[in-house]
């Protein structure tokens, strides 16, 4: 089996063994969504208004909670060596790690989004756009996040620093992602927003692996 596939397979095995990594972000989302009506103390109208923003922000926060794991684990137990000390390109290993991370944490967020939509009274006609926008947006979280993860992997408490590093970079994703949902809730076409999102995905797909690989190498010095 190719190194790429071996790495993806190993990470998926790890993730599926500790299922908590998969369901806890979803529980987190649910909990925060419950907090909103509790804190607001008001009716459904406000909820529906803020639903697209809240769902997208929660997707972002839930991703952030797991992003540090992309490389930190491997650094802590020394298994980074298994892909750094080989002639196989490090950027491909980064790709494999990001892919596995997205499958384990991003995809569940996409599939779970309609539940949050229901809880926040999002018009059901927008569910399609909601899921589609997340399907394009969450991989960008994983890609950009991998840079932050590589930068902070040697720190004991890198989680917060990672958040600070990554969140400003992800603001555009949020704008167009939530924007798409808002448009569709208003009955407009969301295709322009979705196109822009796709452009960002392509961009991060092509640039990020090299940036993350560079970060890993500097971090190991």
């Amino acid at each position, binding site marked *: *089996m*190719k*190194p790429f596939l*071996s*790495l993806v*397979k*190993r990470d998926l*095995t*790890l993730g599926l*063994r*500790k299922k908590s990594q998969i369901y806890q972000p979803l529980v987190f989302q649910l909990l925060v969504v419950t907090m909103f009506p509790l804190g607001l103390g008001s009716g459904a109208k406000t909820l529906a208004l803020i639903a697209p923003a809240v769902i997208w922000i929660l997707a972002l926060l839930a991703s952030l909670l797991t992003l540090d794991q992309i490389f930190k*684990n491997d650094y*802590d*137990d*020394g*298994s980074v*060596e*298994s*892909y*750094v*000390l*080989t*002639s*196989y390109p490090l950027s491909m*290993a980064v790709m494999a790690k990001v892919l596995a991370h997205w499958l384990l944490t991003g995809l569940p967020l996409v599939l779970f989004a309609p539940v949050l939509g229901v809880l926040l009274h999002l018009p059901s006609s927008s569910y399609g756009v909601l899921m589609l926008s997340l399907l394009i947006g969450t991989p960008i979280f994983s890609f950009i996040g991998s840079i932050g993860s590589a930068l902070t992997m040697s720190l004991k408490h890198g989680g917060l620093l990672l958040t600070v590093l990554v969140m400003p970079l992800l603001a555009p994703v949020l704008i167009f992602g939530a924007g798409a949902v808002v448009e569709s809730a208003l009955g407009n076409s969301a295709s322009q927003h979705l196109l822009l999102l796709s452009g960002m995905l392509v961009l991060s797909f092509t640039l990020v692996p090299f940036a993350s690989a560079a970060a890993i190498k500097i971090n*190991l*010095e």
Partner: protein
Amino acid sequence: MPIIKATDVSCQRGQFTLFEPVSFTLAEGQSLLISGANGIGKTTLLESIAGLRSIQLGNIEYKSIDLLKSKDQWFDDSFFIGHKTGNKKELNCLENLRSFLQIQGIDVSEKQAEDALDKVGLAGYEYQFAGSLSAGQKKRLALARLTLIKHTVWILDEPFVNLDVAGCDWLLKLLNQHIDNKGILIITAHDNPSIRKKITHELVLEMQR
């Protein structure tokens, strides 16, 4: 013909140069013990040689090519085991051994991996998670990789730590065998004086004045 040639190599941590520059050459079947007091920089030096850190002072050539220039050949031929074992605590011993090597492009069948675990004294632990092994067992699991690889250069940082007497004997035998097969060995081991018998070169690191 020297295969590894290091000239005036030293390492830095922060701004400080750790030890007096050292030079050495190693040919087939030769082995190098790096010794020196605690904190002199042995680990740092080994990691630099392996390629985890970049070499800032002096230079190292592998087959007459500077390591900084082409790392691929070096990575294909050298194998490093450091203080951190690189085991995943959520994977069992078999999975750990196989996946570690497969990610480096080395194919290992289940049968081969079982044999390796057997050799290293972990028979019966194949399906135990690495996280619940004892200190010595973790080390053994990492060392099992050595029985499955074909790399000519082995770089081992304190491999005897935490091994019991039987484990040390087994490892000594394995290292001897590697050297007899024209392999090259670079090692630190302050807890095992008997390693000196088979070593061809020793480098005692000394404090930078």
